């Protein structure tokens, strides 16, 4: 097949010793910069892009792919170790990953993240090579009404993150939805809940909320209970490496995560957040160890990490075939292409097949390098947790605020961070789940604007939601998922909170 020959040729270019070295340097730099909290993959790529300028196109692309994967993995590392997700896509990873790290299972958590990224990245890259032209045709047919329906499915599914009490879960979700309303309304440009404060016009930054709730809130909570029982942080308990059981529990989660991540990532407005949350909730529902969720279940790291990486490869589908940068990172990649006078788009596959296949081959190579570099480092990373508790939490707070200071050094933003920290503390104290707040902030605005776009195009006719077959199907799925647990009472895991 032509595709195979082209890919083989690309591989032959990529495995030249010099190019392997470039890949390794790229992964190293990407990881080193990506682990800094507050610096997500997009910014990592932006900062390191100039480094690649001096290389030839082939070498540069390979180093670029390395930086990209390194940056993504670096972000997960901080999410797992110190509970400060650098971007919204590693939020779901932090949920279980940090719990694992605190239980002395940071090693397996980092390992399953790295291997899951590798598996998902590889599978998704294969998908990219073979399905891109077909997928993109489906993707552009997705209209606002279909996205809205997809959001409905997501909302119903993420109810798994609500914990045991529906009232508390919904309260958290609605706090998140309220925060999502802050800022300029995307469709009419009017400020909502901004109270005349210019810094609020851009809305609540997802990372500020997450770092505030997760890292600052956790620190406050831990310190508030210090006199009860000294929390013991053991960096390593049991094996540093993944056990046979860890593998058994991880591999299906990796595959399912990939199944969520790649197609949704390929949608022009899909993004990485939805697949990671879908993956997290799915794993939580399917697991044989439900009691471990919320306390550090390995599936909850394996799935979302795979979904995150697969969706990153998915965003390359519209980028390469349509020239559509659908994420900040993809926009930076576009800039990377443009420095060689290349314009990704419908003509790229036809005009420069060597570079396209070279890139796809580089993604494979970079993925391998990521494993080579990061697995040996796992032992080193988890040692960080052996730092005495006062310094550990002091360091976490310094790094957590540093991310915000680097992104937006304003008093308002920092006050929000502190405020969300207090909120996170109070929610922990009164036993409200934290994750739904973030879910509400991310999904609420998307659902609202897609619904309003759909209605604006249909001139206010709500039937547009049912007329699109895709939207009708997704809404039906959401409805079934919503009703099924009640219908199959006793089978579902919906515990009634009232006695």
């Amino acid at each position: 097949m032509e595709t195979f020959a082209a890919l083989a040729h690309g591989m032959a270019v990529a495995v030249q010793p010099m190019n392997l070295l470039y890949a390794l340097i790229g992964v190293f730099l990407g990881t080193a910069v990506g682990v800094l909290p507050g610096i997500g993959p997009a910014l990592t790529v932006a900062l390191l892009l100039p480094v690649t300028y001096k290389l030839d196109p082939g070498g540069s692309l390979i180093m670029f792919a390395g930086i990209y994967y390194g940056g993504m993995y670096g972000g997960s590392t901080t999410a797992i170790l110190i509970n400060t997700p650098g971007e919204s896509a590693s939020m779901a990873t932090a949920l279980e990953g940090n719990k694992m790290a605190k239980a002395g299972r940071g090693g397996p958590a980092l390992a399953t993240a790295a291997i899951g990224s590798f598996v998902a990245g590889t599978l998704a890259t294969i998908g990219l090579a073979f399905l891109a032209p077909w997928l993109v045709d489906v993707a552009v047919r997705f209209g606002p009404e279909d996205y809205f329906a997809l959001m409905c499915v997501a909302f119903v599914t993420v109810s798994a993150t609500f914990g045991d009490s529906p009232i508390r879960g919904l309260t958290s979700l609605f706090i998140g939805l309220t925060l999502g309303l802050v800022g300029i309304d995307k469709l009419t440009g009017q400020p909502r809940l901004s109270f005349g404060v210019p810094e609020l016009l851009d809305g609540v930054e997802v990372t500020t909320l997450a770092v505030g709730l997760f890292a600052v809130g956790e620190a406050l909570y831990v310190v508030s209970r210090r006199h009860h029982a000294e929390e013991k942080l053991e960096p390593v308990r049991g094996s540093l490496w993944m056990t046979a059981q860890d593998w058994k529990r991880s591999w299906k989660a990796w595959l399912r995560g990939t199944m969520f991540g790649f197609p949704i990532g390929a949608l022009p407005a899909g993004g990485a957040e939805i697949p990671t949350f879908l993956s997290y909730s799915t794993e939580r529902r399917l697991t044989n160890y439900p009691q471990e969720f919320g306390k550090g279940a390995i599936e909850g790291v394996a799935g979302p990490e795979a979904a995150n990486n697969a969706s990153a490869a998915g965003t390359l589908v519209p980028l390469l075939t349509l020239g559509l940068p659908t994420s900040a990172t993809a926009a930076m990649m576009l800039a990377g292409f443009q420095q060689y006078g290349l314009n990704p788009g419908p003509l790229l596959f036809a005009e420069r097949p060597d570079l396209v296949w070279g890139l796809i081959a580089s993604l494979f190579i970079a993925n391998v390098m990521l494993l080579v570099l990061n697995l040996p480092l796992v032992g080193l990373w988890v040692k960080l947790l052996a730092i005495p508790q006062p310094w550990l939490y002091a360091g976490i707070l310094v790094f957590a605020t540093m991310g915000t200071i680097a992104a937006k050094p304003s008093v308002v933003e920092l006050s929000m961070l502190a405020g969300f920290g207090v909120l996170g503390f109070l929610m922990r104290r009164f036993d409200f789940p934290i994750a739904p707040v973030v879910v509400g902030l991310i999904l609420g605005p998307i659902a609202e604007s897609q619904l309003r776009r759909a209605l604006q195009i249909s001139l206010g006719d709500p039937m547009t939601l049912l007329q699109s077959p895709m939207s009708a199907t997704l809404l039906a799925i959401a409805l079934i998922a919503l009703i099924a647990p009640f219908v199959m009472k006793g089978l579902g895991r919906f515990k009634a909170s009232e006695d």
Partner: protein
Amino acid sequence: MIPVPRRLFGAAIAFTLAVASPALAQQLELKLMAPAAPGGGWDQTARAMQQALVAAKIARSVQVTNVAGAGGSVGIAQFVNGAKGDGNQMMVNGFVMVGALAMNKSPVTLEQVTPIARLTEEIQVIVVPASSPLKTAQDLANALKADIAKVTFAGGSAGGVDHVMAALFAGAVGADAKKVNYVPFSGGGESLAAILGAKVTAGISGLSEYEGQIKSGKLRAIGVSSEKRIPGSDIPTFKEQGIDLVLANWRSVVAPPGITAEQRKTLNDAVEKMVKSDAWKDILKQKGWDDAYLSGDAFQDFLKKEIVRVTDVLKSVGLVKS
């Protein structure tokens, strides 16, 4: 790590020369504000200027600071209040800021800053899906006049350059600009998908963003917003088609209020030298930006006219209270 040695080198020079002759332009130590987050258009412009100013040895050092928020409203407020009278600071801005300031009821306006120069611009285009029955700008104009509600435009954020253009187009063809059915999308990517999927009637964006699709025949360009036809292009301008609409998405650089005439001249000279340098030309080529250098009083007049025009349009579509 290519930029690092250069910076360190620059710093080293800075130390050795700090004592001597401060009058030379080469002694400039500039602070450049990008009123947006790292990575965006204004940030890229600022960092490109940094690169060119240092490479062409016009300035000894250039420090880029990012103050993100509300389309530049946060940045300009800090710039006007904090850098007043400082002849070593500049801020990057552009078309989008004009609308953002008006919409956010910003207490600080672009009239307060000292204009230095317009640097780059991008031509805007209106496209329709390949399957659309509309062939020319006149077809679109007729559709608008027939039933303006049914003609949906996809483009970037509310009040941005794409939105302004939709309203200007409607106004120019004699339809009611107030009733334009403009659907804002976040980012060029999402709106392009909506156009390719024929969810909307037409799409508006910078030309470079849709160039690939136009060449491959998936989108049909029915007109560009430039004054004259782009050399080598077969897309007609709106003017050629009898519609009076000229618009470009420009980016410029300004200085703080209250600087002396001498300081202003120093900055003007530095920017002029930069624009003429090879380093700057290379960057423009690399990024695919069009040179639109305009300085001095000409730029000041241009800026004033744009502010009036944009504010009027935004009032007409109800985004700014009159």
